[in-house]
């Protein structure tokens, strides 16, 4: 027996992540029903393209509607999230500095140039990893506050951060050479932290929907 044709994986899960409440089941069902209908009338390729287009539009429409229905909550959450992220990103650096200072008893040792390079490499990477984890945690906090709008809130915050970061990047290009921060650092700050934020929102959303599904299941006696 042939297995039923499944809609594309990514848009199917995007809809599942972004749409919640009583619409979640109805919209997923509607898209699945029309997809099956289109596969038999217009072919699999057309149906897949249609599913991608419909899912993207659906997510965008519902995200805009979410802002319309809870504009104050969303704006406050995003602004507070932005400030929190700005503050929290400095914590890993300060923590690592404090630990290193404690470890060497406040004395700066003598480093040869290769030792210095190696030290800076590990220091920068540890700070970067710490910041990525911090951004993800901030994403979790924002998602928890935004209640059933986790993905919309964290994605909007990610976009806001990326816009500000892009301005920083433009300034980077305009600055004279000696003041330049490494470009890879700015690229990570601008475009990878927002992804970590969204990942945090995604984690909270997944945990919440699993908890909700479990509580809806009838208990076995």
């Amino acid at each position, binding site marked *: 027996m042939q297995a039923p044709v499944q809609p594309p994986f990514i848009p199917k899960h995007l809809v599942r992540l972004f749409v919640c409440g009583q619409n979640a089941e109805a919209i997923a069902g*509607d*898209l699945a029903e*029309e997809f099956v209908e289109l596969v038999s009338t217009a072919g699999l390729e057309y149906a897949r393209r249609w599913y991608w287009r*419909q899912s993207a539009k659906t997510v965008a*429409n519902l995200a805009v*509607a979410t802002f319309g*229905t809870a504009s104050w909550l969303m704006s406050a959450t995003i602004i507070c999230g932005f400030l929190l992220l700005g503050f929290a990103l400095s914590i890993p650096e300060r923590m690592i500095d404090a630990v290193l200072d404690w470890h060497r008893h406040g004395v700066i040792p003598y480093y040869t140039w290769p030792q210095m390079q190696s030290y800076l490499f590990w220091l920068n990477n540890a700070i970067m990893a710490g910041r990525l984890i911090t951004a993800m945690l901030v994403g979790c906090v924002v998602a928890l506050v935004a209640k059933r709008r986790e993905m919309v809130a964290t994605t909007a915050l990610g976009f806001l951060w990326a816009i500000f970061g892009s301005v920083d990047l433009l300034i980077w290009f305009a600055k004279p050479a000696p003041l330049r921060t490494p470009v890879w650092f700015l690229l990570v700050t601008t475009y990878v932290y927002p992804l970590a934020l969204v990942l945090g929102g995604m984690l909270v959303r997944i945990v919440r929907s699993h908890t909700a599904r479990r509580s809806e299941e009838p208990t076995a006696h």
Partner: protein
Amino acid sequence: MSSRDYLGEFEQIVILAVLRLNERAYGVTVRQEIEGRTEREVSIGAIYATLDRLEAKGYVHSELGEPTAERGGRSKRFFRVTGKGMSALHRTHQAVKNMIKGLKLAERYS
């Protein structure tokens, strides 16, 4: 009477589609009805965003149907227009009719 008592353009289209479909009005049929009659591509998200707004205003009412296999075991959400929704639709059409009265639109656009 506040301006909120009138329906927007897309809200009117959605309510009319629900009225046309009668007992069969759910996401897929409403979307197909609108696409078929207005020849514009509409997303399922736009339909639900509008229906949610109309339901919050008390213009439509929804209830979940039985889950079906072709929908992967998911339920349909059926919609029907309430009395309040009918009044809002009538009021909006009346307002448009009043605004058009006396204007010779056919001559202007011919």
